[in-house]
């Protein structure tokens, strides 16, 4: 694998220093650099196993976008995306991207973890054209700049969350495709359950300016269960299991 340098990438995660000091190796997904794994290539298998139990992964350099306003849901639907029927739920698109309805008037769109879906790029391009005829009904929310995107995976994840989050995230209470907008480690966060393969996965989106604090809190909380940081290659491998 060629060694990729995140300093040459269009954007870096706010956690880049932590990744580099943990001997991260990066991989290119679309035009984005994401941590592939830490240490040497042998660690991918170990990280994949760890992701099934308890692990955290930084996906903050992958594309995402949001829209808010009375006209936002119908506009996103007009872009040929399927919307969830209820607020605080998600729908996986055929392209692999994930559409989350945060309220009756707020939509969040996340790329797939291979960054193969072009939905976010398409939406951001359409929004630029649409806003030339701005009618105050659809407001763009560039989530790349406002929110970090972390993934906490594994069968012990909900037990770990019970230490730092007041909402019951046990898998039989908080099912796949549901969203909790709540406080995690005293930080406002959007928690989205989006299982990969047969493994429970919780996406955590929170204020990007506080991501170092949140990352350290989550690592600290998962320490007693043996959890640690893994790269995106481990999560990608989870999608192959059923």
């Amino acid at each position, binding site marked *: 694998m060629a060694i990729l340098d995140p300093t040459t990438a269009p954007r870096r995660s706010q956690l880049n220093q932590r990744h580099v000091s943990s001997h991260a190796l990066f991989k290119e997904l679309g035009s984005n650099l994401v941590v592939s794994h830490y240490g040497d290539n042998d660690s991918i298998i170990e990280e994949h196993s760890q992701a099934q139990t308890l692990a955290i992964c930084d996906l903050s350099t992958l594309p995402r976008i949001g829209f808010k306003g009375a006209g936002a849901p119908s506009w996103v639907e007009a872009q040929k995306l399927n919307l969830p029927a209820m607020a*605080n739920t998600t729908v996986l698109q055929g392209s692999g991207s994930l559409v989350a309805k945060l*309220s009756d008037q707020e939509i969040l769109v996340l790329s797939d973890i291979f960054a193969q879906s072009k939905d976010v790029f398409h939406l951001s391009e359409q929004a630029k054209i649409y806003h030339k005829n701005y009618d105050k009904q659809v407001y763009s929310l560039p989530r790349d700049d406002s929110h970090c995107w972390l993934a906490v995976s594994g069968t012990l994840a909900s037990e770990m969350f019970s230490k730092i989050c007041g909402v019951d995230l046990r898998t039989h209470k908080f099912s796949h495709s549901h969203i909790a*907008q709540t406080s995690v480690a005293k930080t406002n966060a959007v928690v989205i359950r989006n299982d990969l393969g047969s493994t429970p996965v919780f996406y955590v989106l929170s204020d990007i300016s506080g991501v170092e604090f949140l990352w350290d809190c989550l690592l600290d909380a998962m320490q007693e269960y043996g959890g640690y940081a893994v790269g995106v290659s481990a999560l990608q491998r989870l999608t192959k299991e059923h």
Partner: protein
Amino acid sequence: MKLLTCPLNGKRNISEFTYGGEYHAMPDHLTSSPRDWAEHVFFHDNVAGIVTEWWCHTASSFWFLAERNTITDEVIRTFKADEIYQQRVEFTAVASETQS
């Protein structure tokens, strides 16, 4: 810990909410006197009894209304603001007179 029910997110710890002041019907900003407008913006009735208040679920930035008894601190109900506001409130500026 006290719990409050957000109409969007359900029952949550009170620490996830921010109080936004008493709800009053907004006077017409074009016809109301400065005194009435200041009354609306700055002053509270501070009623002992059932009042309607603005609250915000800070984790989702979702503003809603709550009916609360200020004597017993019992929340009677919470509801979405679109029960009152059916459309966007526009603030149209008064055309200023040009001086020659």
